[in-house]
């Protein structure tokens, strides 16, 4: 890959192995542009957190070339760390109140007192933490902890913010609320690297996404381009009442052309990813009539990131 000095992060054939046998990061090549929200999407154990550890200079790459803000982390790790912010996947608090944690963090980052107080008050307000400011951090609920941890990171200036699954363990409403808060904070053009296994989050927040699996980047593009890539396709969904669904799925599968793929989800819904949705609809309707099966519902929709994710993981596996 061409090394662009204006990139915030540039990784070429990046490798990290904990034991010298299996690579947790296995030859990843990607770049993160300045000012973009870059998503690292993958299942648990795909290598996301190891990648974040390497990018935040916590562990060294075993092989490959890496530059962060134009600097080589093997020689300039302290300079890099002074210009990044990291919200870890696990909670990390000192044994004191929420506002005490903000104050201490500001001191640790060498923020002058007046600026520290101004930022603390603004962040407590923006992240809806004013009412719990005197509460001890370890007494907070899961959602409050995550909000406090993300908010605290904005106490200092930075060029890149790393968010390692910041919404893990939160319910849907809290998750969206936190994503909105993050979105609001990064409006000014901060570069963000955001890991998640949640497809909706990546779709909602990120400009570009790297899909990772088994330590490799298996797809990398904007959300729209990824959808188009695994695509120009659309998805035909259908479901059938009762046990006759299996017969219908088999019949549809036999009638589809080689370009279309069929997947059945855990709830029994069948998905046909196809470039020709009209033909797929016809196949489903004709098969259901032939078998005398009553369709519970039938729908055509655009591809979602979930479809992209399932397709790319599937291709990676068949490639292996």
């Amino acid at each position, binding site marked *: 890959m061409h090394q662009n000095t204006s990139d915030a992060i540039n990784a070429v054939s990046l490798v990290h192995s904990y034991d010298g046998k299996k690579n947790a990061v296995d030859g990843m090549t990607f770049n993160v542009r300045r000012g973009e929200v870059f998503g690292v999407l993958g299942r648990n154990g795909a290598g996301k957190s190891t990648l974040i*550890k390497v990018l935040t200079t*916590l562990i060294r790459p075993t092989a490959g070339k890496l530059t962060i803000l134009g600097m080589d982390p093997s020689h300039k790790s302290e300079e890099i*760390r*002074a210009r990044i912010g990291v919200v*870890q996947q696990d*909670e*990390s608090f*000192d044994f004191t109140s929420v506002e005490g944690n903000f104050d201490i963090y500001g001191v*640790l980052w060498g923020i002058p007192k007046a600026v520290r107080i101004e930022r603390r008050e603004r962040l407590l307000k923006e992240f809806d933490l004013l009412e719990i400011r005197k509460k001890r951090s370890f007494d907070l609920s899961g959602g409050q902890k995550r909000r406090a941890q993300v908010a605290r990171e904005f106490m200092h200036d930075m060029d890149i913010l790393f968010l390692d699954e910041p919404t893990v363990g939160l319910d849907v409403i809290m998750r969206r609320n936190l994503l909105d808060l993050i979105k609001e904070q990064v409006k000014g053009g901060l570069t963000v690297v955001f890991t998640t296994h949640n497809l909706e989050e990546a779709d909602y927040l990120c400009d570009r996404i790297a899909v990772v699996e088994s330590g490799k980047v298996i797809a990398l593009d904007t959300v729209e381009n990824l959808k188009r890539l695994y695509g120009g396709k659309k998805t035909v969904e259908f479901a059938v009442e009762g046990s006759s669904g299996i017969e219908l799925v088999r019949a549809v599968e036999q009638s589809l052309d080689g370009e279309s793929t069929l997947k059945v989800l855990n709830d029994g819904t069948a998905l046909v990813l196809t470039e020709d949705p009209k033909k797929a609809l016809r196949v489903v309707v004709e098969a259901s009539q032939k078998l005398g099966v009553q369709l519970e519902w039938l729908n055509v929709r655009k591809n979602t990131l979930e479809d992209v994710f399932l397709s790319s993981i599937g291709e990676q596996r068949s490639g292996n």
Partner: protein
Amino acid sequence: MVLPRVSRLVYRNFKVNTDPASLVILVGLPAMYLVFFGFGFGDLLFIAPGLMAFQSVMAGTVGGGMLWADRRYGMLAQLLVGPFSRLDYLLGIMLTTVIFGLAGAVVMYAVAFALLHGVYISPLGWGSVVVTITVGSLFFGALMLILSALVKSNNTYNSIQILVLFFINFASTVFYPNTPRLPVILQVLFRVNPLSYIANLVRAGFDGTLVPVDLFYLIGLLTGTVILVVLATRTYMRSDISYT
């Protein structure tokens, strides 16, 4: 004014470790020892310098506890992806440990001063007390750092610490002297226990009974401390920081 990095870590260590409950344990408990043991055995002049020396152990447990808590609650990883190196963090803990040890010794002296209606320590005596407690705090700080860096379970950490501290505290000359009337095994434990030498040196400074041989004891203590600090540094630098 922006403080140097290690000073910022020391500030943070104090803010986090000086809540009322911690202060009661750190200072209140030895002060109670001083009152109860001092009046109980009727020898405040013996117990007081012993408990000043004992502060080096208390400070050491604070140092080890800081690393342990920071590993366990994610702050070590958080600091190390911030503007600090591993060495900064270690120096921050060591410096905090020494300050805790010296401050605790001063508090013990103040309590003894009040109970004894005035105790005079010569400048040379104070010099001996300060140097000994500084070295002693580093010794026990390094010992507890090794424990914190190696152990992964909370129960194991607490059990080992309690066991080690029990022998260090009670098989030493902090609370009573090593006399031929003690069982031989205890006499041996007293002699190999570094806290005995720390207590003896502080007591000599306190009483104004320093003799040239004390310098050799101090050199011995310093040598042991250097070895332990090197070991602690190596162990800590290689340790897992438990960032998942």
